[in-house]
């Protein structure tokens, strides 16, 4: 892998001698957040409460080399190559300490235009999206994120179309490749200050009998046995006269999953700069295998039939407002997600839940370069199949109907987690006003109240064992101060 990466970079730099000037873009986010309450430096668990103070380090470098420069206004062929390295670690700011193993070559593609009609071709990685919920760092209406292949784009002013086909096998099956073909496309209509878009993508994994890493399903596995990791145990109980070697062979399967996305955008009216609304419905691709241990032996249970009814609905909006030009801006955003699993009616899981969140950020410009930032968010997360959260220091762990049960399929004493956050502080923006102007140098305070006990990344000993030397702490408030910067270039 390293050789391939080095080879690609060498290719990029050697061709640069014949090309236009290479252009380097990037993004860095780095923070010092000493956490006196035992956390890992993030205010809450995840970016459902807003990315600000809930995300940690990120580093991204994107290199673009125009091999033949585009000549606007002509039909001269042009081509360029992009390569992106990114990852979530920067020295001294997180547990990864900036080790390069935390980074990856996430994007490499070559673009070419004026070579076949009005289509801009992109071969390589294919990431494409209608837009971004920047305050959440979420992009529901995205296509081809997992794919490598060919993408065609046509932009004729009022109509923009994108279509492509690729292979997502290495993304969805990194350790056990099987081809997953991903045809799809989308269209965007621009009607003045109104934009509409819709698109979709399929994921087709063919049946490949005899291939160890293809998709299979072990027959006649009850879901409860699967979720408890007791498939072999129960099979042996039902078949005491049989040897484990007679466990049923898996049956080859094909799979077809899909994603549909929608987009609505409007704005440029009074204080409204722009509103983006995104929606997506995705049938998740089935998983391949779980490994169980029984009688000191490992057994593979092939789970395609047990994981092929998982659906995720995501809807989000972001509205950017210029309340007092060059003095006060605001951005309001909201996000809803519903995860359902037709196979799972019994166990608490991230695949069976819903959540809703809203947040508002305001930025007051004391001077062009000195700003005050204030943000607040509220979120509710609900586990559909029972309790999933521990609200108290002495809450139960595995449970059934709120009562301690070592064989329970629920967890804790609450099926709802409510989280409120406030954040505020001073922002220095050398390039002037703008909620999204970067670089930003920020000194921020963040406060969180959550119904869940210690609802942030931490290293507490969560145990009710009498031999727990460290004790259990109950805490619903979490405070952090952050010295951080974020830069795009």
């Amino acid at each position: 892998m390293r050789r391939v990466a080095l080879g690609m970079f060498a290719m990029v730099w050697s061709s640069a001698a014949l090309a236009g000037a290479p252009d380097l873009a990037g993004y860095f986010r780095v923070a010092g957040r000493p956490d006196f309450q035992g956390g890992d430096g993030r205010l809450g668990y995840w970016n459902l409460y807003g990315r600000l103070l809930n995300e940690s380090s990120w580093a991204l470098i994107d290199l673009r080399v125009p091999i033949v420069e585009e000549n606007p206004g002509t039909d001269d062929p042009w081509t360029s190559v992009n390569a992106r390295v990114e990852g979530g670690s920067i020295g001294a700011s997180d547990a990864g300490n900036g080790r390069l193993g935390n980074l990856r070559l996430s994007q490499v593609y070559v673009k070419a235009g004026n070579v076949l009609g009005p289509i801009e071709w992109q071969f390589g990685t294919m990431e494409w999206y209608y837009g971004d919920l920047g305050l959440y760092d979420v992009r529901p209406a995205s296509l081809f994120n997992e794919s490598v292949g060919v993408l065609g784009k046509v932009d004729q002013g009022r109509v923009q179309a994108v279509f492509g086909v690729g292979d997502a096998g290495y993304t969805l099956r990194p350790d056990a490749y099987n081809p997953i073909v991903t045809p799809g496309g989308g269209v965007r209509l621009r009607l003045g200050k109104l934009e509409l878009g819709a698109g979709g993508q399929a994921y087709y994994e063919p049946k490949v009998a005899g291939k160890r890493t293809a998709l299979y399903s072990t027959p006649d596995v009850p879901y409860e046995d699967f979720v408890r990791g007791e498939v072999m145990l129960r099979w042996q109980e039902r078949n005491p006269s049989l040897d484990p070697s007679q466990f049923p062979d898996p049956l080859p399967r094909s799979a077809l999953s899909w994603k549909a996305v929608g987009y609505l955008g409007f704005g440029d009216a009074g204080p409204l700069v722009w509103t983006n609304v995104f929606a997506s419905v995705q049938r998740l691709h089935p998983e391949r295998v779980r490994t169980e241990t029984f009688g000191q032996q490992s057994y593979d249970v092939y789970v395609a039939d047990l994981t092929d009814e998982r659906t995720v609905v995501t809807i989000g909006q972001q509205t950017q407002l210029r309340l007092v030009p060059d003095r006060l801006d605001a951005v309001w955003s909201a996000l809803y997600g519903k995860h359902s699993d037709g196979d799972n009616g019994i166990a608490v899981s991230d695949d069976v839940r819903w959540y809703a969140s809203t947040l508002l950020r305001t930025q007051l410009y004391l001077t062009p370069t000195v700003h005050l930032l204030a943000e607040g968010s509220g979120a509710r997360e609900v586990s559909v199949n029972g309790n999933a959260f521990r609200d108290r220091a002495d809450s139960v762990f595995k449970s059934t109907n709120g009562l301690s049960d070592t064989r329970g399929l629920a967890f804790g004493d609450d099926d709802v987690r409510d989280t409120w956050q406030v954040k505020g502080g001073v922002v220095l923006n050398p390039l002037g006003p703008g909620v999204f102007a970067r670089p930003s140098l920020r000194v921020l305070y963040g406060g969180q109240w959550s119904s869940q006990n210690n609802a942030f990344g931490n290293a507490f000993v969560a145990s009710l064992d009498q031999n727990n030397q460290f004790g259990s702490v109950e805490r619903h408030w979490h405070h952090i101060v952050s010295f951080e910067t974020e830069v795009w270039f």
Partner: protein
Amino acid sequence: MQLPHLRSPAARCALSLALLWSGLFGADALASDKGDGATLVVVLDAGDQQEFASQRTYDALVRELARRGFAATPLETDAMYERTTASRLDAARAAGDSSNIVLVETQARFFAQIAGRYRWTVTAEVTIAPSDEGEPLVRTVEVPVFLLYDHEREAEALAEASVMLARKVGSVARDYRDGER
């Protein structure tokens, strides 16, 4: 001197903030009238079309040039739809009445979608010349720009680049003033 209506701490704080605010925001406006005259032209070459820059870009450039000792006057004339630098310079010389010409010819090129944003590169060829036939100073500068929305294109990229572009043009103006041609 003690003003009776400023006895309360709140009133004193409000006055202090107001003074601080006016001091911080007023500085640039005072400087714009000073210095040598300069005719300022900013052209955006977008495909086979030419556009003038937005007011935001002109404002940033006028402020920055004032800081560098040039009292810049924006000029928009149809002659700027010429395609070559030389013809644009000639047109500015003919239409303007300042002792210097600051011609900023820009292009904006899309770079990539990166982490939710649209990265553009604004390239500007900056030509500063005396309004007579003197030798011009020519520099090329680049400004990276991140836009939030797909519908934002070349014009928005140039507007977003205004502050950084102005500072880079200001550096060229400083060199021009220092005689580095």
